[in-house]
């Protein structure tokens, strides 16, 4: 018996779903085992996790709120992954975006909302975009690996944020807590519920940024010349340069835009969820975004769906934390395990494996003689 591995000619169809569900089940099994190892009831834990994530309408709303920054960061990350530029700096770009927005909110408190809000968005996207451009320029000019430089800029970006919040921007009235003063109402993104007359929990108008960004992403990729060229660059730098595609420009573009989207997410989180800047704004959305982008195979609709799924997982883990006193890191483990299992599972999407009975050598030889 030998295993025969062949590249698939056609796509798996419904098999794709089976592969993904299988990978998910395997990851959940690993997590259940870890729960048991930590001395917690494993199955009950998973039940609590799912009830917490999907059980009530307010948990779904909470997941939707968390999905907003994840979705925006994931779109940005996916853009660069499409051309094999490994931007893993969404976390730092997010931090810089929050810093940029806060700078505007604290500097111009007198502006009306119609001027202040767009200015905050702009500052956030510029700051995040600039942070994303650093690795891009280093890569193009000197060939510095963008993987490590963008990751290092995550640490540095978070420390920039902390430096400001612990120092110059600290609210004198915060009793020593590291946080800025609350933004003026014009600088805070409002909740959707009161305006619409519905009870929508903490859901806020920042949600609107998601369809806008999502539509822009798919139009850019499928309807513009640059989008096609971007897809062509997915074969790698040498091919792109050989085909005389504007490789350098595209690298700058995807890193700038990706940084801008992550920056926008940072602005929305600080303005809508916290109403001020404080270190807790950094919740690891930038890293979750990488998981999301890859799970969704860089496609916009799956990114939206997966963002919501992983956001719901975060909500579920919060409930688990409260009910079973499980460390918050459990969420990270789940994300890592799911990603690992899905990467392994994706093998079955492009290759087919069949078991073949190996013929005895003698028989094969005699057959050869006859032929």
């Amino acid at each position: 018996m030998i295993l025969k591995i062949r590249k698939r000619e056609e796509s798996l169809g419904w098999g794709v779903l089976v592969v993904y569900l299988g990978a998910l089940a395997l990851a959940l099994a690993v997590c259940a085992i870890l729960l048991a190892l930590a001395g917690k009831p494993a199955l009950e834990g998973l039940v609590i996790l799912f009830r917490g994530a999907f059980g009530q309408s307010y948990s779904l709303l909470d997941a939707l709120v968390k999905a907003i920054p994840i979705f925006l960061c994931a779109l940005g990350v996916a853009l660069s992954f499409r051309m094999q530029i490994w931007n893993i700096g969404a976390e730092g770009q997010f931090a810089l975006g929050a810093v940029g927005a806060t700078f505007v909110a604290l500097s111009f408190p007198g502006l009306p909302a119609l001027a202040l809000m767009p200015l905050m968005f702009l500052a956030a996207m510029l700051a995040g975009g600039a942070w994303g451009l650093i690795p891009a320029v280093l890569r193009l000019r000197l060939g510095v690996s963008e993987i490590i430089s963008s990751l290092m800029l995550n640490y540095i970006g978070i420390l920039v944020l902390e430096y400001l919040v612990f120092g110059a921007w600290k609210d004198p009235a915060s009793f020593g807590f590291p946080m800025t003063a609350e933004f003026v109402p014009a600088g805070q993104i409002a909740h959707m519920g009161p305006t619409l007359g519905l009870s929508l929990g903490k859901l806020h108008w920042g949600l609107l940024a998601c369809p806008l960004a999502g539509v822009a992403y798919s139009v850019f990729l499928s309807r513009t010349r640059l989008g096609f060229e971007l897809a062509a660059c997915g074969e790698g730098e040498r091919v792109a340069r050989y085909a005389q595609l504007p490789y350098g420009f595209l690298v700058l573009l995807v890193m700038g835009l990706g940084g801008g989207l992550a920056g926008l997410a940072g602005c929305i989180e600080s303005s809508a969820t916290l109403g001020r800047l404080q270190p807790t704004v950094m919740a690891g959305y930038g890293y979750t975004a990488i998981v999301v982008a890859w799970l969704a195979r860089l496609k916009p609709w799956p990114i939206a769906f997966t963002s919501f799924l992983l956001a719901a997982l975060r909500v579920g883990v919060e409930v688990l934390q409260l009910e079973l006193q499980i460390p918050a890191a459990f969420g990270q483990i789940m994300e890592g395990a799911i990603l690992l299992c899905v990467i392994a599972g994706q093998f079955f999407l492009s290759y087919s494996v069949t078991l073949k009975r190996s013929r005895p050598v003698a028989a094969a030889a005699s057959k050869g003689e006859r032929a």
Partner: protein
Amino acid sequence: MSPELIIALLAAAVQGAAPILFATLGEMLSEKAGVLNLGVEGVMALSAFAAFIVCHLTGSAVLGLFAGGFAGALLCGLHALVCQVFLGNQVVSGLALTIFGVGLSDFLGTPYVGVGTEGFRQFAVPLLSHLPMLGPVLFRQDAMVYLVYCAPVAVWFLLNRTSLGLGLRATGEMPAAAAAAGLNPQRLRAFGVMAGGFLCGLGGAYLSLAHTHLWSTGLSGGRGWVAVALVIFAFWRPGRAVIGALLFGGVMAFQLRLQAEGTNVPSSLLLMLPYALTVIVLVFSAARAKYLKTGHSAAPAALGVNIEPEG
């Protein structure tokens, strides 16, 4: 600065360099065989916990050391499995490994935060520790530091003076040619990744057994990523890795000393130093490679490229 202070700083630099050097050499082994492993950060985090918990339960630091190494090898084995058997993207698999490893270390370690271990204590090497300057800096350290002195030589010897090392390098440069020469590239890669993982695991073990004698979360603190950067800085040569690791050990020692003495510089700026230095070091090595035009020849040619199945 008084001579005592300089000696104390240099000794601290050596201690800071030790975990980074272990991890850099580990990543180098893996990359020499052609597998990019971005999971070092997670591997160090998890093996730090494995070493701590075994040392805590058995009371033996040596067992803890081996536990750290084996935990590292095991986690990297997962990377080898995903990339070699399931042909997963090495970049993404490594990132997933980091997320998983750091998370698992935090998760398992949370109940033990603040618990101390005996670990490795410093002892003076007879005779050598009386050398002027060098003695107190190099030979009044703990056993793991003495171990790290041997590591670059061992890795260099393995890569350049054994047939196994030749096979590893061939697999990293051109797996098809290695296969044609009768070697088994898959097996060699798995060996490179897991042996490298063992070394990264020793780096993690150093953090919980010798660096701090107290368990806390987030022990790895970006050192794994520094190691990935240092492999590039070292042009994939063990000897140069020593220089890189000492540079980082020095900066970390300097920063810790400044914080302990209490300065006007805010701690967030001081904490930025190693990360900023990583970027600077990368820029420096890239510029040097460009100037000498050796950039392309230094990295193994098949680094990051999976071996496709036949048929």
